[in-house]
């Protein structure tokens, strides 16, 4: 496989992103290595070809955002909104991720080896998120579709106003959000957790996970409820 390197201490980020958008699609199998990211925003966003990008160091905001068919691996931490609005492909953060990881994702797989900050998977519309550590408060807020596997703990208001996304949590849940409830695990759930853990290279027993899904009581207006706010 052809391998290209960009040192962000030497070249501007725009050069990297321009290459990934304009030149990479015609190169066939290609691996791009980015060094000294130094927290730069928007690294490898909007990938639209099957390129493999390795980022060696800490990435800034929106790394791998809007990804489609690319594979982005960050050997460091990721700032706010890593893989936000990913359509397909894979983003793997080897360190921790800040707030809003995988926000509004439609597809693909986001793997975070460390902890994720608040609002991980907010408004998830599809795809899968696997977090090796814990997630902060308000994770999976209004998540509509897709799956999240959380190997550590969850903060406050997990799955608040959840639609049809399903969450699997191994550790403690500080509190569930409105309309989120813990449900029994089925054989299909164990298989799902097992499959996602294997895809993420994580080793846990699927039987240790709880399923969190929507009670669907917010789906319809309840005229009999106490409407005093």
């Amino acid at each position: 496989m052809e391998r290209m390197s960009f040192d962000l201490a030497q070249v501007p980020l725009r050069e990297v992103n321009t290459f990934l958008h304009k030149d990479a699609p015609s190169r066939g199998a290609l691996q791009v290595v980015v060094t000294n990211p130094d927290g730069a925003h928007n690294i490898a966003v909007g990938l639209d070809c099957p390129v493999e990008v390795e980022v060696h160091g800490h990435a800034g905001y929106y790394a791998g955002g809007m990804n489609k068919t690319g594979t982005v691996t960050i050997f460091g931490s990721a700032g706010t909104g890593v893989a936000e609005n990913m359509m397909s492909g894979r983003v793997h953060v080897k360190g921790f991720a800040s707030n809003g990881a995988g926000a509004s994702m439609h597809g693909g797989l986001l793997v975070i080896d460390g902890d994720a900050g608040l609002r991980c998977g907010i408004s998830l519309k599809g795809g899968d998120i696997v977090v090796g550590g814990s997630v902060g408060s308000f994770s999976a807020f209004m998540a509509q579709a897709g799956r999240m596997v959380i190997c550590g703990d969850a903060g406050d208001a997990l799955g608040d106003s959840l639609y049809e996304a399903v969450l699997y949590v191994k550790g403690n849940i500080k509190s569930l959000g409105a309309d989120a409830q813990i449900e029994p695990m089925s054989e299909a759930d164990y298989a799902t957790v097992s499959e996602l853990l294997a895809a993420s290279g994580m080793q846990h027993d699927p039987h240790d996970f709880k399923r969190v899904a929507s009670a669907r009581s917010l789906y319809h207006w309840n005229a009999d409820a106490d409407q005093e706010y």
Partner: protein
Amino acid sequence: MCGIVGLLVKKPALRSRLGELMVPMLIGMTERGPDSAGLAVFTEPLAENARKISLYSGMCEEGADFNWLGLGHELKEHLGIDATLASQGNHAILTAAIAPEPVKRWIKERYPKLHILSTGRAIDLYKDIGTPAEVAARYAFSGLAGSHLVGHTRMATESAVTPDRAHPFTAGEDFCLVHNGSLSNPYGVRRMLEPHGIRFETDNDTEAACRFLEWRLREGDDLETALQKGFEALDGFYTFLMGTADKLALIRDPFACKPAVVAETDDYVAIASEFRSLAHLPDIKHATVFEPAPEEMYVWNA
């Protein structure tokens, strides 16, 4: 927006390099705060009976041509005070063996537009409008020495772009605070504080947080207790970084709406809104880097 930076060096040998290490941190936060910048640096404290007062003449008619020497003569003539004034354009640090309150009162009466930036035995404070690079060059930030500092780059949202509304804010002695975010109840906090005799100098929301916390400290709370009361009294979005004569303290609101990242090595603790501002620090590749959690207190001793 707004950018926050903080740096505390753990080894005395690094104190002379504090400013040099910090300037790229401050400039790194230009996109988050291009309209004003400032910092408070904490030095070796003066003797018990001595104080230093940072002064800013940029809002006087004379501006950078302010007659600092004349101010020194007048202090001698009217109050019998032997003060040294280390001046740099529109900024000066007045040092003397004094009780600071009568001197500050006299300054406010004689020169109402001369802005008193800070008072204490350890704190020197600088702030002005302009980009972080311009402000850093104006006051030669790279030459500053000390054990720790608190810096800020401002993108104004809650009050006008003027030097007195730039950060850090101070209250009392040897205390300062910088803020990224916006408070939703600053006027309620002000109305609660004003009957205690606490006066405000601007309409800025951050000043309410600064004066609230300093009031709690003055009332006898330790820093941790004061910060806990801050969580209860202050509503809105905030990452606050505070400096005292011997501490740096950081808190984030329960929603962690405003960013912060910390890098720690054997030599220093560095705090910034984003990693971009930490990337140049020595040995950063081996630093422990983490995001401070919401509603937790982080306190580092100088």
